[in-house]
């Protein structure tokens, strides 16, 4: 893929995991037999999957489709007879009560009366079910004393018989839009005049011969460097390419392809965050006060986000910004690790796999924090376009938002649930500008013994890779995520998309924790996850201070034939890299073997500051660690910002100043997608596994929306942790400084609502930005960083970790833009997610947002930070937290989108109790629908309410009806049942029509 003097070698063309034009069945000798087993539900009533698919098919406008019957296929190659296959089908593959099966010779012989669509995985794409089925079938044959029968490989497929389709075009549409994703799957249509031939053997992966490749970079001029950067998917700037060229000119040699790739991965925006760390001259509006200033930042991140933590200097911050996750103290014995990541570009192309590997990667960050934290909770926040988006306006190769949402929810569900980690907090934010760039934020919280937080490899330690095998999956993820998406990316970067295997990661976690807590002490000196950049990043980072020698020929592979460069940069999932002292190696390998997790020595940490990579004893790369980690040229950029006083952030929301419209107005506010119930998502997640849950995402008799989650990390302690988040991209359109302040405010408010000690709250920053290629877009970034800094310092909330994802932009041809009526470039709104992690001193003092008792008073505690400043707002948060801690508050809820009216309506919905609310202009000057920062609704006993000094605006009623009036004018009068229906309906099954 790098232009070289030997540009015709096969290695240059590998983009797909397996290239097209494969040799089919070359290794299947005459004795190999092929079989298929087809399993289907015994009765239509048991075909839930078929019904689910039918609903999706009708969603895309094919309402006339009458029915869909689903079945599963197992394709089996090996040396075995029909009776062997029948035994496998009967005893293992089909359920004897709920399913029926047929066994047939070959892979392809099946005839259905109805037209059918059959979906297969693309060759080389991870298929965990196929691997499990193969292993289980082998075991079943042994158990049945049929040891002479052997199985080479099993693959799985799905088949759908479709009743009522009008021709082959509709079948094709169903396959493309509902059943399969071309990035990872392929389909065959049989019936309605088509009979796509199904291959009768498994393809063989290409075996690429070894050939050391050098890249002639020294002679290239600027134009050629720029071209190489894009075409070889390096995505480096011209200045960076020049730095590499000049470095190799000084060395008087050309880099190998592996060296160049290693530099590109290590210097990618994804790995090194060069925009946020760059020097910036800022000119524009002052921060949080009127006037215009000029300011210079030598390193934006260090002088804002990191500086807030330095200024606060809290002794309970145990590890900040130096590891895969941040760590705060829980008690004298344990710390809590927290990290949030995004996985945006892969989720745009393949939502299910992208989101699943997103949560998988974030979990590995927590496993790779210190010597390993045990994951105890996950979070998920999605930003997507509205699910009812007009499909006709969809650009080529962009997936419909409804499908994106369903896919990412399923991905997080299947991975998180299988890992046994409860998904406890999150939100979904809708805006059309996320159409081609959905954002998938995944967070993970871990429990770590305080004596396992620090780690460092030593010279002589063995480099051990453990977990999944390495394949051609995920090549170029780090550089892919550092580029903007275009309408050709789905093709070009299909190889960056991956499917996760959660059980592989679960067994890896089990083995790691046994090695960490070994009776002889921790068996390894350091660990990190294999994420973006694969081994190149993991080994490069771990060995930064020492140097390392790696033999790529020893890395276990999924299939033969990978080039050394593919092995080095593959981002195959579910792998961790350990530094194991030689004296512990046998014990370490024994622990992993007992858990059936593969662990292999691939090299040694050295002491000469050089990264040496060999393949079958031949040197294929030799890089100076100093250049690799510190050679990146530092740039100075200019940033500007000018206030947009007339900016109108969203035009699809009714303006909040208006209070008219009666009860219908409230009902429609509850039906706004950003407010509506997310129950459809939440109930698909296991949010209680591990038995630590105290406050769940849905609370009260009728499942209202909790502001934050609370967990009890230790079964024998009443101390808890709380998890919340703040996100308000709509404010960023007007002023990103204010967006950051309000996001921090919301993240704090959420955890205060459930009973958190506000003196012990840490936060994470996740920036998702479009391209930062103008002074103004950089100015927006500067203002966000400063807003986050100022709020964090004022509220006493140290940042402990963070991450950024830039280039969230999509571009299409002018022609396509004209056809869809969309702008040719779609940039996401500037988006900052603040995640909060707080300590709850005693979980028995937690409160939830559902109303508790008729006759109690409802008070409003409000001091909007954007009007009254950070210090006054801080005082309000502390006062509310103090009332909750003193057990004077029965229910607390954060006022957010939809204002006071929606907040109280949600409290009614949660409890099925009513409320009568009467606001005077003095109590709540804004409209009852205005979303304002730093505002809480509290339920208190009337006497406590009076003593609190906050204005009482209403009381809890046993009659399940909400009435709201202002100055004796009735604004709302509606049964709580109706409120609940309006709130639950929009996303009841993932949205859409």
């Amino acid at each position: 893929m790098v232009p070289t003097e030997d540009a015709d070698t096969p290695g240059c063309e590998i983009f797909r995991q397996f290239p097209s034009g494969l040799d089919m069945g070359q290794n299947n000798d005459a004795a190999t037999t092929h079989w298929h087993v087809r399993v289907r539900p015994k009765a239509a009533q048991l075909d839930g999957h078929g019904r689910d698919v039918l609903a999706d098919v009708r969603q895309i406008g094919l309402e006339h489709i009458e029915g869909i019957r689903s079945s599963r296929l197992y394709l089996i190659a090996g040396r075995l007879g029909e009776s062997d296959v029948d035994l496998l089908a009967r005893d293992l593959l089909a359920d004897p009560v709920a399913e029926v099966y047929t066994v047939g010779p070959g892979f392809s012989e099946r005839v259905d009366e109805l037209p059918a669509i059959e979906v297969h995985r693309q060759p080389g794409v991870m298929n965990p079910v196929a691997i499990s089925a193969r292993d289980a079938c082998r075991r079943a044959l042994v158990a049945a004393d049929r040891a002479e029968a052997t199985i080479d490989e099993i693959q799985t497929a799905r088949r759908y018989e479709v009743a009522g389709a009008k021709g082959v075009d509709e079948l094709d549409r169903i396959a493309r839009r509902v059943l399969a994703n071309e990035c990872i799957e392929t389909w065959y249509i049989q019936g309605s005049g088509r009979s796509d031939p199904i291959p009768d053997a498994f393809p063989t992966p290409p075996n690429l011969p070894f050939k050391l490749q050098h890249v002639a970079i020294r002679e290239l001029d600027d134009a050629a460097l720029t071209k190489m950067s894009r075409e070889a998917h390096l995505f480096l700037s011209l200045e960076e390419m020049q730095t590499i060229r000049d470095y190799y000119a000084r060395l008087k040699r050309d880099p190998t392809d592996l060296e160049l790739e290693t530099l590109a991965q290590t210097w990618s925006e994804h790995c090194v965050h060069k925009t946020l760390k760059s020097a910036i001259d800022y000119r524009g509006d002052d921060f949080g006060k009127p006037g215009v200033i000029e300011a210079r930042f030598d390193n934006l991140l260090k002088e804002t986000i990191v500086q807030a933590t330095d200024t606060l200097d809290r002794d309970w911050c145990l590890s900040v910004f130096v590891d895969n996750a941040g760590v705060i103290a829980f008690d004298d014995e344990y710390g809590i690790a927290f990290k949030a990541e995004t996985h945006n570009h892969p989720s745009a192309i393949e939502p299910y796999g992208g989101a699943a590997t997103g949560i998988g990667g974030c979990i590995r960050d927590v496993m790779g924090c210190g010597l390993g934290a045990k994951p105890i909770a996950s979070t998920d926040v999605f930003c997507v376009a509205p699910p009812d988006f007009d499909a006709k306006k969809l650009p080529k190769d962009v997936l419909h938002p409804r499908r994106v949402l369903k896919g990412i929810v399923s991905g997080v569900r299947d991975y998180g649930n299988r890992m046994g980690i409860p998904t406890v907090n999150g939100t979904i934010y809708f805006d059309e500008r996320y159409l081609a760039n959905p954002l998938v934020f995944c967070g993970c919280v871990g429990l770590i013994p305080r004596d396992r937080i620090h780690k460092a490899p030593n010279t002589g330690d063995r480099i051990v890779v453990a977990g999944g095998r390495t394949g051609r999956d995920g090549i170029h993820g780090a550089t892919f995520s550092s580029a903007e998406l275009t309408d050709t990316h789905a093709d070009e970067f299909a190889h960056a998309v991956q499917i996760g295997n959660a059980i592989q990661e679960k067994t890896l976690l089990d083995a790691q924790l046994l090695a960490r807590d070994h009776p002889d002490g921790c068996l390894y000196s350091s660990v990190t996850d294999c994420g973006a950049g694969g081994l190149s990043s993991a080994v490069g980072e771990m060995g930064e201070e020492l140097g390392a020698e790696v033999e790529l020929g020893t890395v276990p592979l999924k299939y033969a034939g990978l080039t050394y460069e593919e092995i080095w940069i593959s981002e195959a999932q579910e792998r961790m890299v350990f530094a194991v002292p030689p004296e512990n190696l046998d014990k370490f390998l024994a622990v992993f073997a007992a858990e059936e997790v593969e662990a292999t020595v691939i090299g040694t940490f050295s002491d000469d500051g050089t990264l040496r990579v060999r393949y079958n004893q031949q040197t294929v790369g030799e890089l100076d660690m100093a250049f690799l980690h510190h050679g990146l040229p530092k740039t100075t950029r200019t940033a500007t910002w000018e206030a947009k006083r007339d900016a109108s952030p969203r035009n699809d929301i009714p303006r909040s100043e208006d209070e008219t419209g009666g009860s219908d107005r409230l009902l429609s506010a509850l039906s706004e997608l950003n407010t509506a119930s997310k129950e459809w998502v939440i109930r698909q997640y296991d949010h209680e596994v591990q038995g630590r849950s105290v406050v769940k995402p849905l609370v009260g008799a009728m499942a209202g929306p909790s502001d934050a989650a609370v967990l009890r990390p230790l079964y024998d302690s009443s101390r808890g942790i709380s998890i919340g988040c703040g996100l308000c991209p709509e404010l960023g359109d007007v002023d990103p400084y204010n967006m950051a302040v309000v996001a921090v405010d919301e993240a704090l408010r959420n955890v205060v609502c459930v009973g958190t000690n506000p003196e012990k709250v840490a936060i994470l920053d996740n920036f998702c930005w479009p391209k930062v290629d103008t002074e103004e877009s950089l100015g927006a970034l500067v203002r966000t960083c400063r807003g986050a800094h100022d709020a964090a310092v004022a509220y006493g909330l140290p940042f402990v970790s963070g991450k950024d994802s830039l280039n969230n932009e999509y571009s299409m041809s002018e022609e396509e833009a004209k056809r869809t009526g969309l702008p040719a470039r779609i940039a996401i709104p500037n988006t900052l997610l603040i995640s909060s992690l707080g300590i709850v001193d005693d979980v028995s003092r937690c409160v939830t947002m559902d109303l508790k008792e008729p006759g109690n008073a409802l008070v409003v505690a409000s001091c909007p930070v954007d009007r009254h400043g950070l210090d006054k707002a801080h005082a309000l948060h502390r006062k509310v937290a103090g009332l909750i801690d003193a057990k004077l508050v029965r229910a607390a809820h954060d006022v957010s989108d939809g204002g006071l009216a929606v907040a109280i309506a949600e409290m009614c919905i949660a409890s099925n109790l009513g409320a009568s609310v009467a606001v005077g202009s003095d109590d709540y000057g804004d409209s009852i629908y205005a979303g304002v920062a730093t505002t809480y609704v509290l339920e208190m006993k009337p006497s406590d309410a009076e003593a609190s000094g906050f204005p009482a605006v209403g009381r809890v009623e046993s009659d399940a009806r909400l009435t709201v009036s202002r100055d004796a004018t009735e604004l709302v009068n509606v049964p709580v049942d109706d409120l609940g229906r309006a709130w639950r309906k929009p996303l009841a099954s993932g949205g859409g029509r």
Partner: protein
Amino acid sequence: MAKVRVLVLRTAGINCDEEVMHCWQAAGGEPTLMHLNALSDDPAVLERFQIVTIPGGFSYGDDVAAGAIFAQRVASRLAEPLRDLVQRGGGILGICNGFQILVKAGLLPGDGETNAVTVTYNDSAKFEARWVRLEVCTDRCVFLTPGAHLEMPVEHAEGKVVTADDAVVSRLAEAGKIAVRYVDDTGRYDSYPANPNGSEGGIAGLCDGTGRVLGLMPHPDRHFEHAHHPRWTSRRTDGPPDGLTVFQNAVRFWQS
């Protein structure tokens, strides 16, 4: 008095072993955690224990079908040793994935009855997490208090109990093998979401003829504290949490 010895099994994808271990401890038992491979290598270990527990999770990914691969391993190496354990007065508790495994390995409904019952995909065709109300429908199960109503969560995608023919449910009921049923406020077994998966007869759990083998889809191991209940901030409680009683009943039975 010697403590009741409990073996808790784990393997790739079992993920509720930690809370199940804690529940047995909190109930006064003495649990030991062991990998399925270690037990398969030496089934005689079972002689040291009175109760075996298979916790929830996604054993082997629930690939092929929920619990199918674990059940296959049990059927091939451990079915006899486990039957021996029950015959000499021991018991088995399977929760969620553990229940699916007991059914698919032929240990439930037990007494030689095979291919009469299975556990398969929810009517909704997807994973669902919600709290349910259970009615204890048998007086012979040593883990359950006859007539009690219990609240605890279900968290599964394949929890629908399906029977081979219409006669099976009444046969199971007559034999006292329907251990717990999902029930709504009006006493019905079949209304969604009170019955969260469409189980026939509202069956949430089964026991065998001895009453010492119990399997159920809902998670008693997720209601061992009052603060686990979704409405704990608004309800008054007395007595132990519903889930914990399952473990306490067992410890009391085997201690006497």
